[in-house]
C-alpha cells in the first residue's frame, strides 16, 4: 500500500479532489491504530487506549484497540456504527508526510493515490487553476506537521512512562456468546504505581501536561464493553 504514496505535485495533482468523508474502510485489517497523546481525552470516550511494543524497535507506541483478534477492525465491518470520535490521522488521510531519506527532519507531503477518497468530482481541490495551493491544502499541511509533532511528544510520553515504571503488561480476556477472546502484548498505566510516585516526578508529569492523558487511558479501559458489543453484533 505504501508504494502508491507519491509526492504531491502541483501539475500532476492540479485537478484532483479529496473526499473528506471519514471512515476506517481502508484500514479494515487494523486491529490497532496509532493515537497521539493529545487526543487521548477525546478518544477515551470511544476506544480502549493502550500501549504496544513496536516489533522492530521494542519502543512503546500509543494505540486505540479496534478489534479483538489480529487483523480485525470492528469499526470497518459492514453496518458498523460510526464512532463518536475519529482518530486524527484519519482526518488527514489520504495526505501523509514523507520523510526525506537523507534528512529525517525534512518532510514533503505525499498522497496515497489508491485511496477511493481521491477523485475528480467530489470534495476539495488541492491546487487552484494557477497551481497555487488552496486554503484547504494549507490547512492540511499544518495539520500534518502538527500531527507529526504530537506523535513525537507521544513517543516521548511513552518513554517517560516506561522510565517511571508506570506501564504494566495486561492480559485481557473477553467472553462473547460463549466464545473467549484473549489479548496479549498490551500495556496499560499502572495506577498503583502512579499513586505512589514521588511528588517531584508526579509534578513533572503534571507540568508537562500529561495527567489528562494518563487518566484518559485508565478510563478508556471501560470501552472494552463498547468493543465487545460491536463484536457481539458482528458475530450475530
Amino acid at each position, binding site marked *: 500500500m505504501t508504494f502508491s504514496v507519491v509526492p504531491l505535485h502541483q501539475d500532476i495533482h492540479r485537478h484532483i479532489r479529496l473526499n473528506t468523508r471519514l471512515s476506517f474502510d481502508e484500514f479494515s485489517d487494523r486491529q490497532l491504530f496509532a493515537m497521539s497523546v493529545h487526543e487521548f481525552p477525546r478518544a477515551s470516550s470511544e476506544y480502549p487506549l493502550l500501549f504496544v511494543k513496536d516489533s522492530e*524497535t521494542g519502543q512503546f507506541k500509543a494505540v486505540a484497540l479496534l478489534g479483538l483478534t489480529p487483523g480485525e477492525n470492528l469499526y470497518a465491518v459492514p453496518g458498523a456504527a460510526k464512532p463518536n470520535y475519529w482518530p486524527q490521522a484519519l482526518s488527514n488521510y489520504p495526505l501523509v508526510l514523507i520523510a526525506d531519506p537523507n534528512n529525517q527532519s525534512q518532510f514533503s507531503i505525499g498522497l496515497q493515490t489508491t485511496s477511493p477518497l481521491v477523485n475528480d468530482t467530489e470534495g476539495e481541490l488541492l491546487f487552484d487553476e494557477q497551481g497555487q495551493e488552496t486554503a484547504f491544502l494549507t490547512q492540511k499541511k499544518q495539520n500534518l506537521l502538527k500531527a507529526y509533532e504530537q506523535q513525537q511528544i507521544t513517543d516521548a510520553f511513552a518513554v517517560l512512562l516506561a522510565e517511571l515504571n508506570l506501564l504494566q503488561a495486561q492480559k485481557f480476556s473477553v467472553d462473547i456468546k460463549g466464545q473467549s477472546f484473549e489479548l496479549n502484548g498490551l500495556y496499560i498505566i499502572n495506577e498503583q504505581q502512579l499513586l505512589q510516585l514521588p511528588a517531584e516526578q508526579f509534578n513533572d508529569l503534571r507540568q508537562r501536561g500529561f495527567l489528562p492523558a494518563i487518566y484518559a487511558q485508565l478510563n478508556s479501559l471501560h470501552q472494552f464493553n463498547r468493543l465487545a458489543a460491536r463484536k457481539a453484533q458482528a458475530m450475530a
Partner: protein
Amino acid sequence: MKMIKQVLIVGGGTAGWLAACHLAKKLQSGSASGVQITLLESATIPTIGVGEGTVPAIRQSLQYLGISETDFIRECDVTLKQSIQFVDWMKPAADGTVHRYHHLFDYPDLSSLDLTPYWLQGLAGDCSYADAVSWQGRLCDAGLAPKTMLHAEFNGHCNYAYHLDAVKFARLLTRHATEKLGVKHLLGTVQQVECAQNGAIAAVLTPEHGRISADIFIDCTGFSALLIGEACKVPFIAKNDVMFVDSALAVQVPYASSEQAIPCYTIATAREAGWIWDIGLSARRGTGYVYASRYTSDERAEQVLRQYLQGAADQLPLRKIDMKVGYREKFWHHNCIALGLSQGFVEPLEATGLLIYDATARMLADLFPPHQAAMPMLAERFNQRVRLAWDKVIDFIKLHYYLSDRDDSAFWRDNRDPASVPASLLANLEQWRYQLPSPYDFHSKLEVFNLENYLYVLYGMGFHTDLAGQEYRFGAGAQAQQMFGYYQHKFQQLQSELLPHRELIRRVQQYGLQKI
C-alpha cells in the same frame, strides 16, 4: 559480641567487583547501619580479563544487582550465548564429517516426559540428542537470537547467557558498585599483609592509604593469591593430574566486516593438546588455545591457533597465560575469604570461571556472618560447599575428555586413563551404562552442573546407555514422537519471528530493551 562492620576486598578484576556488588547489595553498604564494603584496586597490576563466557545464572545476578541489561549490552560489547558448540571432540565420521554437538542452555523438559530413552531407542531417527529435546540447537545453527525486541530485559524465547568483554564488564561493575551500592573504591598497592597472633589478617599496608584494617578480607588478587596464599599460607591443591590443560595463548580477532554473522554460542574446538575457544563479541572475536604444556610446546600451540584462525590474526601478537589448575585447601581461613582465581581455577571449557565466582560471592553474601563468633562455623560450611562445587565442576569437565574417542595424540589417550579420572565420575558413568541418569545422581543443591547438562554432553558425545530388556519402562513412544515433531515445528515457527543475532544486538544498542 563483636559485630562485623568492615569488609576489605583486595583486587579489582571481575571477581572482585562481582563480590563487591553482591556484598554491598545484601549488606546495605550504602546505609549508615550497613556493612561498609571497600575495594582496594591495584593501580599497576592489570587484570587477566579473558573470562568472556557466562552461563544463564548471570542473568539472575545482573537483574538482582539492579544492572540494566541494555546498559550491559551496550557498554560491555555483549552478545548472547545460547549454547556451547563442541567441535572435533570425537573423531570425524567415516565420510570425514566433523563431529559437533550443542550443550544448550534450554534444558530438556523432564517434568512431563523424559525423551531420553525414546531418543536412545532411535524413535527420533537421525536427529541429534539436542535437536530431539529442544528447538534451541536449530536456532543456534540458523544464526538466530533467542529473543526479539518485544521481549523485556532478561527475557527471551530461550534461555541464554552472555559473551562479554571482561575488562569493560569490570568497569561497569565498578560504576554500579560505587555509584549505586555504596562501595568505597581505593586505588593502591598492597605492600605488606599484617597478620594477628591467631593467624587472622589484621590489616593490609599500602603506600597510598597507609594501614587499612577490616573485619573481613576478601582475596580477589588472582593467581598471586596475596592474602589466602602468601599471607595465610593456605596450601594450593593442584589438579593437573586430572585436568591436563595449564596454558593458554589468547588473541582478540577483528571481524572481517561489520556485517559478519556472530554465532550465538561459544565454539570450543578440540585440538591435539587441548581446545580452542572462539567467542564472538559485538566488536570483535575473543579466541584462544588452551593446552597442556606437558604435551605440546608453545611454538606448536601458536601454529595450531594461527591455523585455526586462517589468517584472521596473522599480524596480531598472542598473549600467553599460565594457569594454575586446582583450588585452595580452604577458601575461608579465619577472616580471609578467597574469591576468583585465588580460590581456584580450571580450564574455561564450560565457562566455569565467572560462574563459580558469581555463585560463591552470592553464597557469601547470603551466609554473611553478623558477628565474629559466627565465623568459624560458617567458614567450615562455606569451605565444604565451595570445595564440593569445584569437585563437581572438575568431574564435569573431565567427562568431556573421558568420553572422547580421539586417539591422535598422547594427550587424548592419557585423558582416558582411569587413573586420571575422579572416582565419583567413574561411578556415575558405570551406573549410566545400563540406567538413565537421574535427578537422584545430583543431590546437592550447589552442583553447578546438573542432570540436564550431563545429558547434553553424554548423548552429544555418543555415550551408550543400554536399555535392552527395560522396554517395559518406556511405554510413551507415541507421545515422545509427537514431542520430537513438536520441537521441529516450533523451530520453524520461531524462525520467522527471530532476528539474526548481530541484527538483534544492533537494535538493542540503538533502541534499548524495555524493562517490562
